[in-house]
């Protein structure tokens, strides 16, 4: 099934023609209170997931049942905002129907779009719910225009969320070659690996984002006080060891301290830190990025409120006068307070990070 065909290598400039178009703020909601906080503080879209492995934040006590989704959609729509449902894990061979049913439920609830990673699931959505708007999830690992245009031609995706691996120049080059709206991550915990291309968690625990919608799942975590210090383990593997008085972070396995060669006890892969692209907003706007995504469905309603408030103000300020925009210190301070590791980085947007 091919829905659309783009001429090979043709530049497509749907976004760049109107660089001052509205830039949407897409905020996370792990619960109804978080959704309301996001809407109240000015999110254009709120994204959420069902209470199962069909989404990449499959944590206990998090996410939405049918009643909460209905209430949430009514709340958002009453204020003219959108609700997106993330169904962005990969349907597992034994229970593909669970994911199909999730698509049906999302469509029936009247969501504004579903965020998908699996081509088979996109095919199902196109066949059974042709009016349903499709976003390509970051878990789809589409990092180049050939990949994004492929999903566009076959499934008519309206938007793609970029993995957090491209530099600003690479994002701009990609935008010139696709008719698909591009959403990028603006703030939140940072995956150092390409999303959808990381099996580290299943290597250690048997469960990973692609298969179970989790990374370094809480049930595999053990904390131990030892003479050497406080230790965090993931299914028995020592992820980090903290000196007395040192802040201990969640043992996401790529953010622990390890030994490599003669280098002892360093963040060999990535230190706990948050992505924060506030200072890049004018450039992202000028190059035609359609939406900024905030990470953190696992975070509290207070986090969602705080981050949404800052980003709403920043985007409005930037759109009103991009040439005079600069990230206000008070925005940065209030975001750092809620950031993982209480520090921030520009991530891959800034080449030296790589």
């Amino acid at each position, binding site marked *: 099934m091919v829905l659309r065909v783009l001429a090979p290598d043709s530049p497509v400039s749907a976004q760049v023609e109107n660089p001052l178009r509205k830039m949407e703020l897409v905020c996370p909601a792990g619960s109804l209170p978080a959704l309301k906080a996001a809407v109240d503080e000015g999110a254009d879209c709120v994204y959420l997931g069902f209470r199962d492995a069909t989404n990449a934040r499959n944590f206990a006590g998090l996410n939405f049942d049918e009643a909460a989704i209905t209430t949430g959609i009514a709340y958002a729509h009453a204020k003219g905002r959108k609700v997106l449902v993330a169904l962005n894990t990969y349907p597992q061979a034994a229970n593909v129907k669970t994911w199909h049913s999730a698509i049906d439920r999302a469509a029936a609830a009247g969501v504004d779009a579903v965020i998908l990673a699996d081509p088979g699931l996109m095919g199902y959505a196109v066949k059974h719910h042709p009016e349903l708007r499709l976003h390509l999830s970051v878990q789809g690992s589409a990092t180049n225009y050939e990949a994004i245009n492929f999903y566009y031609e076959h499934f008519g995706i309206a938007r793609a969320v970029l993995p957090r691996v491209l530099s600003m120049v690479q994002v701009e080059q990609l935008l010139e070659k696709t008719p698909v709206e591009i959403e990028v991550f603006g703030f939140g915990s940072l995956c150092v*690996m390409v999303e959808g291309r990381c099996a580290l968690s299943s290597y250690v625990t048997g469960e990973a984002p692609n298969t179970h919608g989790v990374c370094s799942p809480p049930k595999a975590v053990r904390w131990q006080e030892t003479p050497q210090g406080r230790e965090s383990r993931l299914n028995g593997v020592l992820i980090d060891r903290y000196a007395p008085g040192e802040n201990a972070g969640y043992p996401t396995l790529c953010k622990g301290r390890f030994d490599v060669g003669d280098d002892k006890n360093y963040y060999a*892969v990535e230190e706990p830190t948050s992505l924060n692209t506030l200072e890049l907003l004018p450039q992202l706007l000028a190059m035609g990025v359609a939406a900024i995504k905030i990470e953190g469905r696992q975070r509290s309603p207070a986090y969602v409120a705080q981050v949404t408030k800052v980003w709403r103000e920043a985007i409005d300020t930037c759109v009103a006068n991009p040439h005079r925009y600069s990230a206000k210190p008070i925005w940065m301070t209030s975001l750092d307070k809620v950031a993982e590791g209480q520090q921030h980085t520009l991530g891959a947007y800034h080449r030296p990070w790589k």
Partner: protein
Amino acid sequence: MKLALGPLLYYWPRETTLAFYAMVEGASVDIVYLGETVCSRRHELRLSDWLDIAKRLRAAGKEVVLSTQVLIESGADVTVLHKITRNTDFKVEANDMGAVHCLASKQAFVAGPHLNVYNLPTLQWLASLGAERWVMPLEMGRDDLALILRERPANLQTEVFAFGRMPLAFSARCFTARHRNVPKDDCQFSCIHYPDGLLMRTREDESFLVLNGTQTQSARVQLLLAELDAMRALGVDVVRISPQASNTLEILQAFDAVLKGRQSAAQAQQAIEAYLPGEACNGYWYGKPGLDQISTPAPATDRQPALA
């Protein structure tokens, strides 16, 4: 079942790489995957060099497949991708959906292990676009594979990663350059110093992962010799051996001996034990954490301890 040599995941000096593939010409292997799949900065061999090797291997009777880079970021990366997918001489293994886009409905291709094919509808879709073989995701187990193969599309071959350190994750960041405290853009091609990658250990000295430039591998070595009979029964067509710095040919011989019935799996395993760069593991195959080693096919509820 056929035996395949996967793409070389490490960065070896040019002469080492050429000598390795000269040896492979005479090795007991049916299919050879070639090309740089990890990092576009690696340049000891250019595409023209890989094509020369491909021609020699084909002349030696091997089926040759060109593998595309897994993480394609820049315009230059896409240009290289186009050069590979537009070649008319050799089949291509697509390692991202951009590559599939370039090959779909134009020429038969191999759907590589990083395309995230976890279910039948997605596999059927790829087959409809011209996939003639797919490589099971590393983290998929035998039970899910069995379900998929029960209804697999006609004429679609299945390949399983059966030996080697597993390429588990990809990043824009180079962890080898990070270790040597140099930026990626001026990485000084650090990974050439680590022919089997750079071992990362936990603070209690357990071998945990291997840093291979922008790729992160398992420190343990996936070893599915004892599982070959089960694979054959399920309908697996090809098993993949991933190249390592030494004794790759002996590994190929061991698998060949078991596939052809000259040796038992236990005998072959004993023969190659000394050649493993790390401890063996097979957990993924049994639906467990990938680093687990299940000594005998165990009932589904039996959980093995991990590294502790």
